[in-house]
């Protein structure tokens, strides 16, 4: 990754090729960021959070969060108006991009600056002043931290990490941690991920990418927990995975049993779409019916119970008997599934049957 390539330079002077590489890649990101700013609408928390997950990790690592935006979100306008949103972010990115561009000016001269600043209103005075500050940045990180508060860039930190002692970096990360909370709130509104190195954590690109991956995975596990009923309380990945596996297995088994039931059915009429839809709307059973969890019921008891329930409907009875008869024939061969099926149907059929009785009468 180019961060490591940039940091691998032993001294403060990098080779021209490395500098160019870094600069080229960073310029690509600038244009990306600018385009994204222009086109990204203000998204609410949920969709932007899933948008966060779509980003590949290295790209997430590269994006630099300008801490000036933290100040902005603290002060005004909580109402997320699209234009305000875009407008407010133009401001911090001007300074952030200009600082990065200025940093490059120390190394590469003028190559990328024109591209980067083309959409920002260039402020040459601040550009020069920050350029002049860059040399002291390298030697006295503490001073620049105080003079330009929260200017810390993860890329600059990374480079410093490789060369200098860790304490200064930790100090800088401690200062930036106060901004981290605000930045985390910010991150949910923005359409891309800000990954900030926390205190005491390694800041190389591999671990950052891995951390982003782990967060992705944890987020998806949470979604799965919501989908699978009864999983919200369980803590621990292993048990949750157990529950998920059980749920998937039970669903697949239900599909098999239902298709077996359909195989035994004698369709007296053609399959009619409208009746299916109306029955669907009137159906009171939801998918959480624990058909497979129930213990085995004796099929004969269930069948007798059903027949006694609706004696006056003779023609229904005849059909019922034919259907149940077939299932009894199958019972000799496939007992457990049919017992569950009959339990299933007797549970389901009661509300539907009552509906149809009303319709018939």
């Amino acid at each position: 990754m180019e961060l490591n390539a940039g940091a691998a330079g032993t001294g403060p002077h990098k080779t021209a090729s490395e500098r160019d590489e870094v600069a080229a890649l960073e310029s690509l990101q600038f244009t990306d960021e600018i385009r994204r700013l222009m086109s990204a609408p203000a998204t609410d928390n949920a969709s932007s959070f899933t948008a966060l997950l779509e980003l590949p990790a290295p790209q997430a690592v590269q994006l630099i969060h300008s801490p000036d935006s933290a100040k902005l979100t603290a002060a005004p306008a909580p109402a997320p108006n699209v234009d305000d949103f875009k407008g407010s972010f133009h401001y911090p990115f001007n300074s952030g991009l200009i600082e990065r561009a200025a940093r490059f000016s120390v190394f590469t001269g003028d190559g990328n600056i024109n591209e980067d600043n083309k959409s920002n209103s260039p402020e040459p005075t601040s550009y020069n002043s920050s350029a002049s500050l860059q040399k002291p940045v390298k030697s006295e990180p503490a001073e620049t931290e105080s003079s330009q508060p929260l200017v810390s860039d993860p890329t600059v930190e990374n480079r410093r990490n490789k060369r200098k002692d860790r304490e200064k970096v930790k100090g800088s990360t401690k200062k930036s941690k106060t901004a981290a909370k605000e930045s985390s709130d910010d991150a949910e509104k923005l359409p891309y991920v800000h990954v900030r190195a926390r205190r005491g954590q390694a800041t190389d690109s591999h671990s950052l990418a891995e951390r982003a991956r782990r967060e992705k995975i944890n987020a998806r596990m949470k979604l799965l927990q919501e989908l699978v009923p009864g999983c919200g309380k369980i803590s621990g990945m292993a048990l949750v995975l157990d529950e998920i596996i059980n749920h998937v297995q039970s669903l697949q088994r239900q599909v098999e049993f239902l298709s077996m039931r359909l195989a035994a059915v004698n369709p007296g009429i053609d399959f009619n779409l409208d009746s299916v839809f109306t029955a669907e709307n009137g159906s009171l059973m939801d998918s959480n019916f624990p058909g497979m969890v129930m213990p085995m019921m004796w099929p004969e008891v269930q069948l007798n119970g059903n027949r006694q329930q609706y004696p006056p409907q003779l023609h229904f009875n005849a059909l019922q008997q034919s259907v149940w008869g077939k299932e009894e024939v199958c019972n000799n061969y496939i007992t457990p599934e049919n017992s569950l099926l009959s339990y299933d149907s007797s549970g389901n059929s009661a509300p539907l049957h009552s509906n149809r009785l009303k319709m018939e009468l």
Partner: protein
Amino acid sequence: MDLHNLNPSSLKSRFTTRFLRALTEINARKPIASSSSPREIFQRYRRIKDAADTSMAYSVRSRRTWSKATLWRLRTPSHRRRLASFGRRSSLNKTRTTTTASHRGAVVVQITSRGGGLGVQLEELRELVPGGEAMDLCNLLDETAHYIKCLTTQVQVMRTIANLYSLE
């Protein structure tokens, strides 16, 4: 549940229409005799189950790995499938275990070493979700979520149909 008609472009309605079409076709081909042997019923059961899975996989508008895998499983005959899956699985195992230098390999090693039981469950999940052998954990969880959603829809619709037509 509201009593309006279903959204005509929802997953449920797409699946329902396809499945009903498939059922009518199966019934037209071999109408049930009043005394059918269990073997015939078993054959019907297999055909209906395959029809249900196929129609579900087709109704998935967005391309999903599990739907592709389901369709492939039902389309290709078993002997060709065995050869293909043999090649696929061996190459997969190679990429997963031997390349420790690669980024993904390192992360996979981390996850399996973190919890011993976790690896077993991941393998189980991979077996359950069709097409799950070839995916990394992140995508696997995604696919599982979508698969669960589609399975619940399938079960709901099939149960309604079975109730409707077993009592008329």
